[in-house]
């Protein structure tokens, strides 16, 4: 299950959806908005999501995780809109009989979500400037940074 929301993410309620009497393990990941990126002080982040395709692609990622590891339940929720420092931008949870599957599937889902979902974020800096955050993979190539002066490598959460 992949959901996009403008509301605060509530990990406890999401976790409750993944319980199962056959589950011995539960792994979760959260991406939090942090106050510093590439040395610049961040005030808040603005997320843009193209929802129809984000959901389609997200469901595909979760199905892939299911086919690779013996998991019971998996879910991912991504925020949309304006987020403040400390807020949760993305939540991933996986329950399974044994912990190895839960850890691997959880990691797979967040890694894929970050590079495949049509989601963008604009950082608003303390100095009043703002800039779109470049993709995680792209920022590994320093030569492609800062085209037009508005692109920032790396990401607001991690």
């Amino acid at each position: 299950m992949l959901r996009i929301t403008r509301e605060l993410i509530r990990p406890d309620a999401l976790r409750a959806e993944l319980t199962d009497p056959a589950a011995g393990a539960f792994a979760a990941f959260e991406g939090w908005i942090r106050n510093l990126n590439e040395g610049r002080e961040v005030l808040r982040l603005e997320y843009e999501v193209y929802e129809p395709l984000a959901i389609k692609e997200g469901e595909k990622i979760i199905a892939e995780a299911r086919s690779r590891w013996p998991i019971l339940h998996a879910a991912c929720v991504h925020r949309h809109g304006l987020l403040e420092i400390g807020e949760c931008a993305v939540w991933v949870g996986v329950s399974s009989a044994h912990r190895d599957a839960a850890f691997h599937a959880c990691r797979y889902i967040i890694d894929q979500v970050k590079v495949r979902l049509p989601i963008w974020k604009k950082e608003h800096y303390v100095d009043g400037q703002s800039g779109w955050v470049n993709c995680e993979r792209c920022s590994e190539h320093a030569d492609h940074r800062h085209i037009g002066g508005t692109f920032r490598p790396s990401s607001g959460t991690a």
Partner: protein
Amino acid sequence: MSKRITVRYFASFRERAGTETENLLIDAATTRDVFDRVRDRIGPTEPLGHCKVAVNDEMAGWDTHVRDGDTVLLFPPVAGG
């Protein structure tokens, strides 16, 4: 032969195009051709390999053929999470 293609821009592309959607009448066989035409208009972008494209709400590749009436969604480098 010219095709009517609706282009949708997202994030930085939308800001640079100054619009969310536009209807183009262009000679284009593939999504790559559409993107090339768009770059003539909005200026240089990140390399093709870092951007993504969808046709009629299905993720596509840069060799995907476009037909008259298609909607092409142009995605700058994504950065979810």
